[in-house]
């Protein structure tokens, strides 16, 4: 494995951060994508409690009532179920992560803020272009409600001299339908984790057909590489944890309204099947 380290930039002079309050970390379940983040969060907080909704026998309402009664300064929700439960029932500010369709689920409330579920768009395209310089035309299929993301992606693509073919769909079948229509005209397909328009069957078919058509596919999870994807562009748990800590600190330090609804990540993990390289930025 080759680790590419970017040139270090000069760090600005900042005052020492104030100590963080006790937090409650609520996990949807203990899958690695969530557990890794929780593990990393432990390094940022001195006083915290972790609640695993998947492993705990108690219902979410009981757990949230317990959190509400505690001296926790904030609730960190990892995963959709944890976020939905926390935002609905918590008396404390909630910072959620690892939720892609936060708008669809209406997670942005007055006392809730989120951390992006994807690595920076710009970084993703840069890494892909670096791994496969020949890529010119990339297809992207998403469900509704991601207009900002699409706009950001189109700008980034333009910057990297890539034509982005975007299609908004409403179901897994429609996704497959459009995929089949576009797969012959693209150099690569950018698969984003919009679960609403992806089913297991469609996902496997798309990856199989892309492989058949020699179209490289970028996936948001390393586990999907085994299905035939060429490159995985994923977040890093440490980056997510640091970003969450930063948001908690911002909420803690001032008015929550001054905190952006979604805070973007800064790092990306790239794993290309052909070169097997990991890029961290």
């Amino acid at each position: 494995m080759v680790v590419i380290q970017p040139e270090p930039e000069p760090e600005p002079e900042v005052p020492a951060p104030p100590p963080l309050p006790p937090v409650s970390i609520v996990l949807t379940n203990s899958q690695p994508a969530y557990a890794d983040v929780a593990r990393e969060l432990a390094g940022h907080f001195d006083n915290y409690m972790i609640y695993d909704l998947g492993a705990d026998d108690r219902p979410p309402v009981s757990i949230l009532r317990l959190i509400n009664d505690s001296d926790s300064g904030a609730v960190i929700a990892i995963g959709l179920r944890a976020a939905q439960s926390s935002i609905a029932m918590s008396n404390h500010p909630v910072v959620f992560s690892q939720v892609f369709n936060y708008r669809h689920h209406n997670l942005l409330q007055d006392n809730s803020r989120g951390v992006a579920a994807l690595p920076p768009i710009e970084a993703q395209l840069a890494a892909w272009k670096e791994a496969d310089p020949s890529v010119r035309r990339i297809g992207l299929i998403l469900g509704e409600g991601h207009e900002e993301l699409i706009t950001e992606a189109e700008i980034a693509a333009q910057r990297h001299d890539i034509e982005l073919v975007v299609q908004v769909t409403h179901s897994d079948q429609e996704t497959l339908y459009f995929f089949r229509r576009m797969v012959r005209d693209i150099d690569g397909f950018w698969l984003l984790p919009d679960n609403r328009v992806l089913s297991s069957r469609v996902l496997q078919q798309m990856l199989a057909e892309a492989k058949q058509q020699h179209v490289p596919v970028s996936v948001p999870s390393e586990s999907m590489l085994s299905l035939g994807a060429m490159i995985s562009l994923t977040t890093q748990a440490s980056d997510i944890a640091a970003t969450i800590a930063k948001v908690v600190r911002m909420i803690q330090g001032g008015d929550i309204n001054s905190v952006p609804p979604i805070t973007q990540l800064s790092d990306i993990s790239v794993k290309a099947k052909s070169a097997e390289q990991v890029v961290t930025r």
Partner: protein
Amino acid sequence: MKTLPDWLWSRLRALRERLMNFRFRGNGGKRVLVHEILSMQVFTAAIFGGLAIASLYFGGQWVLQDNYSRWALQWTEELNELAAPLYLAEDSEARFRLESFVERYPEIDRVSYFGKDGSALFNVGSDAELEPVADLGQSRLEDAVELIGQEKPYLLQSGFLNPRQFEILAPVWTESITEDDLFGFDANSADARTQTHLLGFVGIQLDFMIFHDRLLNNIKGAVLVLMVLIFVFALFGRHVLRRALSSISDLQAPIQELAKGNLGVKFNPAEHREISDIVEALETTATALSERDAKLLDMANHDSLTSLFNRRRFVEELKQETIAVMHKGHMSAVLFVDLDQFKYINDSCGHQAGDRLIRKVADELVRSVRADDVVARFGGDEFAILVRKTTINGAQSAAETILANMRRMAHVEDGQVFHIHCSIGIAMMDGDHLYYDDLINKADIACRDAKTAGRNRAVLYAHSDETLEQDAACVGWVNQLRNALDDDGFELRFQPINNIHTGETTHHEVLIRLRGEDGKIIPPDAFLTSAARFGMMSEIDFWIIENAAKAYAHYSKKNNPLKLSINVSANAFESDDLVQHVREVLDKYDVNPNDIIFEITESLAVRHPPHVEQQISAIRELGCEFALDDFGTGYSSFSYLQQLQFDYIKIDGTFVVDLLNKPVDQKMIKLIAEIGHEAGMKTIAEYVQDAESLALLEELGVDLAQGFFVGKPVKVPRPKPTPISLGYHRLKRTHP
């Protein structure tokens, strides 16, 4: 009402019946071997061809059905994909895509979409506008919901009798991975984390008519090809079969010729061994038949003793000659030759000596005439000669030559030398005298005249005034006899014949009478000579036989059956139909043959022994009896009695008429009676006029008596006992 299996069974039985009765028939309604074999082969080929086509049809159907199912699954999936945006986003482009898809497949008649609750939403398709779609029923709805996530997520309905139309109902749903699972997506356990979302239902009507029609067209093509092949096969098979069976066919014409009597037919050599054997057998048969035919023809035309032509053939030759005389205008002559001393030699030296003499005379006669003249033996010692193309002088000269040669001829028998003379009657044939039977009669008359005049001479038949009158009278009789035959103008009389000892009637002799134009009854002596002269005797004999049988049927009683004795002339025995006629008449009137006796004259028996013997044997086999009539006057050869096996001997009336005064006649009668008894025959005495004669006849050994004393001829046959007179008893006492 008949059920379908009953109806099918009855139709099958009717078909089998028709097939069993079905035969190819050729001309004449006969079965034709080639056609039968060929039809069997064609029928078999058609059956197998039909089975092959049926297999092709059903196999094709099965393949199509399988394909229909695959297509149905594929289209259902695609329509499912296309339908999702319509439910989720009301996307007009999605509707357009859907319609484009449906248009691409003409097999899709209509696509109907339903909401989650089964309510009809909209239709797409060729006949989508024609018929509104009903909402889905609850049960179908539930069945369809069950299909979500299944491998074949649709309900398929197709009819057995209409396999080209399908109806498909499938749920429309979306699947998605739970959001929490996508970040750690594991391909191996992805299914467990899939969540489904029912959108509605899609109904698809498919009509694969185009494929079905294509299949049917292919089947039709196959049927056509099969029919052509069967036709070609039939033609070829017909040719091959005809060739194979040509050996048999070639036999057809010769066998038909053979059946027609053409025994000289030639058979082509056969190629096949089996047919060759048949041809050989047929040739052998034809040869044997030809030989037998020649033998029969020879027997029919020749006299067995002398090999000369017989009477029948002589008459044929005479007929031919009359035609020649009529056309060419020349004259010919018929000579009737009768030996003068034959009876003496026959009686004294025996029958075989008589035969040797006859053969010698025959040879002499043949030598005495020209090669193209015809010599025939009429029977006994009678010969006839046709002298062609001659004059009266020529005929007389020919007769003189015969007489001279006969005078020179000496016949040695048992050391004795016999000189044979003959009497010859001559009848000339010219344009005015052409009737052959008449010519023979005239020659016969002239012959008798020659005998009367002292024998050993030739006499030319002369047309004297008396004979002319007789001829004229004969012509009158001919007309009257013809009318009588046509109009039943004859009548029968029945004269009893009684047992001489008991006086009881044993049977009746049937006698014929002619009813004259004035109503008077004419006795047979007046017309039978003319009937014989003009060849009507056989017809009269047949009339008598039939009417006697009719009388038998009318008068005979069960407990006392009638027994009749019928006279039959020589002419009847010349007819080949006599036996057949007797058989038919007896059957027709249910006559017991044992109750019928046929009487033939001694002269007939002597003249035609072989032919008469055959006829008598055939009639005897029916059960009838025979009596020899007028015995003692003519040839009186006792050897004939044994040869012909008579049951009765009728002693000629000339011996009986003056019996009381002629001891010679008494001895003659006694001798005949004794010989008859020895031979197992009964004797009948005719012309019994009185009781004395009757008594004497009894003493002489006679068994039966007939005559006016015994009973006169009567219309109705009834038993009539012999009258008893006083004189009878006296005579018995006085006569030793």
